[in-house]
Every structure is written in structure tokens, then in C-alpha cells.
């Protein structure tokens, strides 16, 4: 139960689910949510390595903290982009937001 690989598998599953969301959702907010899932998957990995392998248990936690901070920034920017897009296209469907196609 409390082994490294358990956590890694849980993290992988979380990451995979997030990935699935990013790939198939058309709702931009849905995609953002999925990205948060993926970030959490990564965070679990950090914490797990910190718990089972790392020489200094503080370092992994600090990294997780940083990731959280960056995730907050990412969410802020992402959401504002979504709002801007929504104003422009009256939609938050990614498939409509394709002005750069070749």
C-alpha cells in the first residue's frame, strides 16, 4: 500500500485522465481543469519521491509549492485568455478558435 510505485501509478492515472481531458474536451475551461489534474499528478510524483527517495525532505515540498504558485499564475492567465476568446468568438469551443490554420 504505502510504497513508491502505488503513488507513482496513482499519479500516472491522474496525469492520464488529465491528458484525456485536454485532448478531447472542446470546452476551454474543461481543458483548463484537465491541466490542473495533470499538474497535480506531477506534484504527487514530487511528493512521493520526496517521501521515499530524497535526501532532504524539505526540497520536494518546496518544489511542490513552486508548482502550485505557477499553477495559480497559469490559471489566472488561462482564464483571462478564455475570457478574451469568449468575447471574440462568442464561444469557448477550441475548434472554433482556429484562425491560424494553414
Amino acid at each position, binding site marked *: 500500500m504505502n510504497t513508491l510505485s502505488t503513488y507513482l501509478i496513482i499519479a500516472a492515472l491522474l496525469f492520464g485522465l488529465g*491528458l484525456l481531458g*485536454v*485532448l*478531447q474536451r472542446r470546452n476551454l475551461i474543461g481543458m483548463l481543469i484537465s491541466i490542473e489534474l495533470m499538474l497535480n499528478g506531477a506534484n504527487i510524483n514530487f511528493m512521493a519521491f520526496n517521501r521515499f527517495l530524497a535526501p532532504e525532505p524539505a526540497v520536494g515540498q518546496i518544489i511542490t509549492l513552486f508548482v502550485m504558485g505557477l499553477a495559480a499564475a497559469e490559471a489566472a492567465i488561462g482564464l483571462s485568455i478564455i475570457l478574451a476568446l469568449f468575447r471574440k468568438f462568442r464561444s469557448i469551443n*477550441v*475548434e472554433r*478558435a*482556429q*484562425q*491560424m*490554420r*494553414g
Partner: protein
Amino acid sequence: MSWLFKDPVLLAAVLCTWLPFLSMAVILIFTRHKPQLSSYISIGAVSTSLICALYLLIKLVHVGEPVEYRTAWLIADDIIIPFGYLFDPLSLLMLLIVAVISFLVQVYSLGYMAGDPGFSRYYAFQSLFAWAMMDMVIAPGMLQLYIFWELVGLASYLLIGFYYEKWSAGQAGKKAFVMTRLGDIGFFLGLILLVLGFGDLGIVAMNEAAQAQAIPSYLITASALLIFCGVIGKSAQFPLLTWLPDAMEGPTPVSALLHSATMVAAGVYMFSRIFPFFAASPTAMAIALAIGTITMLLSSTMAMATYDIKQVWAYSTVSQLGFMVMGLAAGGYFAGVFHLTTHAGFKALLFLCSGVFIHEYHSNDMRDIGKGGGRSLKIPMVCMTVGALALSGVFPFSGFFSKEAIMGVLAAYPNKIWLLAGLLGALMTAYYSFRLIFMILFPKKVDATMPHDAVHYHQEKDDKIQIDHEEAAAGHGAAHGHGSSHGHEEGHGNVFWYMAWPLIILTTITLVLGFFQHSLEGFLLGHAADAHGGEGGHGAGHYALLIAAVSMGLAGIAWAYYEFGRKGASQEGFLARLPKTQALFANRWYIDRFLRRFLDRAIYGGLTNVFTRNDRRVIDGGIDGFCLFTIGSGRLFSFLQSGMLQYNLLVMVAAVGLVVLYFVV
């Protein structure tokens, strides 16, 4: 410039050759819109040239050695192209011929071209021609000769196509230029060969080296044959002879000047210019003899079948040029040059006479002129008969002497076939010349009103102006391209005498020139007599030959009289009874058709077509295809760049996943 005035000979030479150029420039740039002034400038220039040429001849007539002036026109490494003047008997003689004929023709043109809208242009081109021809004549080196030779061709192109509204005139000019150019390519290559093989293109140097056998014989033969191509093109020898009859599209004075007396004679002149060089190669001489003979016979037959008065003289010019080439190629330096001289006189005369008829009757057809009352124009009629007698080689006209000289050379040639050909040519020449004379002199009376018209034309000169106008209105005169309502405002007589005086002068020349044979021979062969061995000494055979040749000429005249001249003659000629032969002759032995076919099939239809298609399809097509491929593949790949983030990411993820699986699992 002081060097110029120190030497009167040089000054005369410079004036002689460059005044016409100056007059051309002045006319083209300043006096284009003042026709009268332009013509005076041009005639003034050419008469100064004439005076200078006379001065040069008198001054230098006793100088044994050739006088040479030269300056470097261009220095490129080992090639030096000099510009300068070479005065020896031949060039002095030819310079005088050119100056005299140019002068007379320009005076004549005052009448003939009066009122033409392109009057100034005409005189500018005449000056251009005079300049080019004179510089060519006294060129000391072959390259200068070639350069002005080409310029003469240019002037000829411009003058033939003078009536540029006429499609056929443009075509004829183009044909003349391209065909002579074809010959010139050979000339040019011959010169290059000589430059590379021998190095010096000075005429004196070439001739001396050839005589001293300092040039290898294969080089002489090869370059002589190539240079002879130039003669073929310029002097309208077989197989490039058809441009000359077509060139009759130009104004008649132009035909007289360029296509009888001077420009076409340039080929023969060049031949005689480097005669010792040619003479050093028996092969080249034999080929030239053969070509001259073929040309003479072919064009004589052509002249028998045409009714166009200018065409007859054009064919006859070709034929006589062939005769000159024969004489030269058979070794008769003096004979060829002498015939060139006499021919220049009487052929210019013949053309100018025809010009008067054409000017009066607005038709080139000898039957129309005859019916119109050509015989009533006394001066041209008499002059033309004199010219025709000279052409036929009848004593005591100049043609007799020069033809005899050539016959003598041919008789001295071991193979008698050339002599026979020459005699046959003399017969035909007499026949076709007098066919023309008789047709004009004794028109066939089919239409009863015609004599009336003739009287009308001649005697009521005041009415004639009106007739001219009527004819112009009927569009008859317009066929000639120049308006017919010209010139008469200033009085008909004035115009007529502009045209008559040159005729009278030329007739006089034709009458007396023959008797100067020996002095000319002495002058021309003076210093070189030993080298050539002279052409005298035909001995007893000479008289037999003389009788044979004259009787041939008289037989031709008699034949023509029987068919065209006597009362009740059918005026059809024996050719009318041989339709196939007539067709053959009238169609110029199908040389033109062959050339046309060749041009259409091989050049336009063949190479041009293939190359153009290649350009469109293969090169451009290849490039465009390549571009299309690029664009297409861009389109193809742009599907991946659909702008749909999720597909991009999907592919990325799948790819990374596969890579990880491949390496790790």
C-alpha cells in the same frame, strides 16, 4: 587637327568619306522637316566627295606604290583594327565610280522623289550609303572593309524598305538583309580564320603574303572559300541570288545606285581587292568560276520570263555580276574590274531610264509602258537603247570592250566549256534586253485608243498634271507607294531635266568609256603588271572570238526582233510555247520556293517551334511544376497545421508515448 591639313591627300580622303556621314547626321537630327534643304545638304556633300575623289585620282594616278594611311580604331590585345585609307588604282577607280553614280543618282532623285513624304529620310539614307560605300572602298584592311560592308547592307535594307507602308517592300528589305547576312557570316568566319591563322588583315599584307606563299595553302583555300560566301551574299550569286530581284521594291534610283552599280558590285570589288589572295588557291578559283557561271545562266533565263521592267534589269545585274565573277575567277583581274566599271555606268543608265518610264506611266509592266506610249519619251528611250546595246556587247559601246576582255580570259582558260557558257550568256542577254526594248518601242496594237493616249501623254503636257491626279485618285499610282501628285507644282520641265541630265551624262560615259580600255589597263595593272602577266596576247584567236561574241549579241538582238520587233510579231516569245519552262524561269527555278519551304519547315516550323515548346513545356513547365509541387505539398502538410490544438497535442503525446515505450518497455 593640324595633321589633317598638312597632307592634302589625307584631307581630301577625310572630306570625301566623312562629309556624307555628317550630312546624314545633320539631316536626321536637324532638317528632317525641311526636305529641300536636306536634299541640298546631301547633294552638296556628295558633290564635294566627287570633287575630292577626282582630286585624289589625279593626284595619285602616277604613284606606283599604294598610299596608305591608318590609325588604330581599336586595340584589343593582339587584335588591332585599323581605320584608314588605302589608295591604289583599284580603290581610286572604285571611289570615283561610287562618287559619280551617287552624285548622279542623287540629282536624278530630285526629280524622281520630288514630293515624297519621306524626302529628307531618303536623302539621309542616301548619304549613309555613300559614306559606308566610300569607306568600304578605300579600306586598307579586311576588317574595316567588313565593317562598312555591313553598313552598306544596312543602308540597302533601309532604302529597299523605303516605302515602308508597302508590306512587300518591308519583306524585300528583310530578305535582302538576312540573305546577305547569311553570306556575311561566311565572310566573317573566313576573316576570323585568317586572323587566327595569319594574323594580319591588311589588304596589301594579305596579297603580298599570298603571292609569296607565306600562308599555308589549306588556310588560303579555306578562308578564301569562306570569304567568297560574302561575295555570294552581297553580289547575289547562286544560291543567294533571289534577294536582288525582290529588292526592286525600293525606289528606282535606289535600284540604280545600290543594286546595279555600287552595293552589289561590292562583292565583286572585294573579290578583286584581294585577287592575288584568291588566285593563290586554285580550288577557290574553280569553285568561284562555277558559281559565277551558274548564276549568270540561271538569272539570264529568269530575265527572259518576266514582264516587269525593273526585274529584267535586276536579273541582268545578277547575270552580269556572275559574268564578272567568272572573269575574275578565270584569272582576268583587269577584265573583271573593267566590266565592273562599264557595267556600273550602263546598268545605272538602264535603271534610271526605266525610272523615267515608271515615273511617267506608274507601271512596272513593260507591256503597259509600251501601250502607254513609252517610245514617245525620246531621251530615255534613246538612252535605254544605248544601255541595252552596251549590255548586249555591241561595238562601240563600253560593254563590248569589257565583255570582250572577259571572253578573252575565258578563251584562254584550258577548259572551253566556260567560254561556251559565256557565249550562251551573251546570246540570252542580248535577247532579253531587246525583248524589253522592242516591247516598249513597238507595242502590240490591240487597243485602238492607245496611240491617242500616247499623244495625249506626250504632247499635252499641261493636261498631264490632271491625268496624273486622276490616276492617283484611281489608286493606280498609290500602288507605288509614293504619291503621284508630286513635284509638278514646280513645273514639269524642271523635274524632267533633273532626271534627264544624269541620263545624258551616263550615256556619254557608256559611249566613250570603252575607248579608255588601254589607259585603264595600264593604270590598274601598272605596278602589278608583271605579277599578273597581263591579259594581252590573245593573238589570232582573239579576232575569231571577237566575231563570235559580237555575232552572238547580234543574233540575240535579231531573235528578239523576230519575236517582238517586226511588224505583226506575236510579242509572245518562244517561252510562251513552252509553258513548263516558262513557269520554271518565271518562278526563279523554284529557288525562292525552296528557300521559303526551308525557312517555314526547318526554321519556323522546326527549330523555333521545338525550342519554344521546350521553353514553355519543359523548362517553364518543369519550374512551374516544381512550384506547384511545393505549393501542393504545403497544402498537404497544412492539414497537420489545422489550427486545432488538440490534434497537434494528440499527435505529440502519442509520439512521445510511443518513443518512451520503445526505449523503456
